[in-house]
């Protein structure tokens, strides 16, 4: 009876690991399709920062669960990599978007106002 419960626990754990890995790879692939399909630097950035962060989190959590449940190894580096990715990906996206705006990339918007440009102009007038 006990071995039956252990066997079922192992089967369910394997299915959960496979689910995490597959969902992570799906989100990475869909973020790359977003990088191809979106019309603008800012929308591409929107696709790649959010989607790739979610995909990386899924893949690394899947690898952590695989090593923990099947080989009894607690690898804290994978969880540390998840935390590090969650911390640094928004910062990198913010810096790239500001650099693109300074380099003169125009956003494709339905209403043709660039609010960040207006804010920069207002700050310049305020400094004078």
């Amino acid at each position, binding site marked *: 009876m006990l071995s039956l419960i252990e066997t079922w626990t192992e089967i369910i754990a394997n299915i959960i690991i496979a689910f995490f890995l597959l969902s992570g790879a799906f989100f990475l*692939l869909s973020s790359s399709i977003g*990088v191809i399909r979106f019309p603008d630097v800012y929308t591409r950035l929107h696709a790649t920062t959010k989607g790739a962060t979610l995909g990386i989190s899924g893949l690394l959590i899947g690898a952590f669960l695989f090593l923990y449940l099947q080989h009894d190894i607690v690898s804290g580096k994978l969880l540390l990599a998840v935390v*590090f*990715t969650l911390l640094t990906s928004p910062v990198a996206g913010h810096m*790239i978007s500001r650099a693109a705006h300074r380099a003169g990339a125009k956003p494709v918007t339905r209403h043709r106002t660039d609010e960040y440009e207006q804010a920069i102009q207002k700050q310049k007038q305020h400094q004078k």
Partner: protein
Amino acid sequence: MNQLLSASYTIIEIATIICLAAISVSLILLVYRIITGPTSADRAVALDSVGMNMMGMAALTAVLIPTTKINDVILLIGILLFIGTVAIAKYLEKGVIIDRDLD
């Protein structure tokens, strides 16, 4: 029951191989965006995403050959990716990476 257990182990291997194929397709799409990006910021975005895909590929390799020695590589790719992205963004913004006049 034992057949079901061995089938669930096979499911993980097949899922890992499917994930590697999906990440390969995603890398091909990103290389297309790097080559034909209209501006430099597009190329920077695509390079950031290429680094993310490399982290995922290293994690899948660690699952495929069960080892823990690749986990250092994953963390290191993440750190170097962040530094490289910040350097590219500062270069695109100001033209220099390390600004010497401290205003």
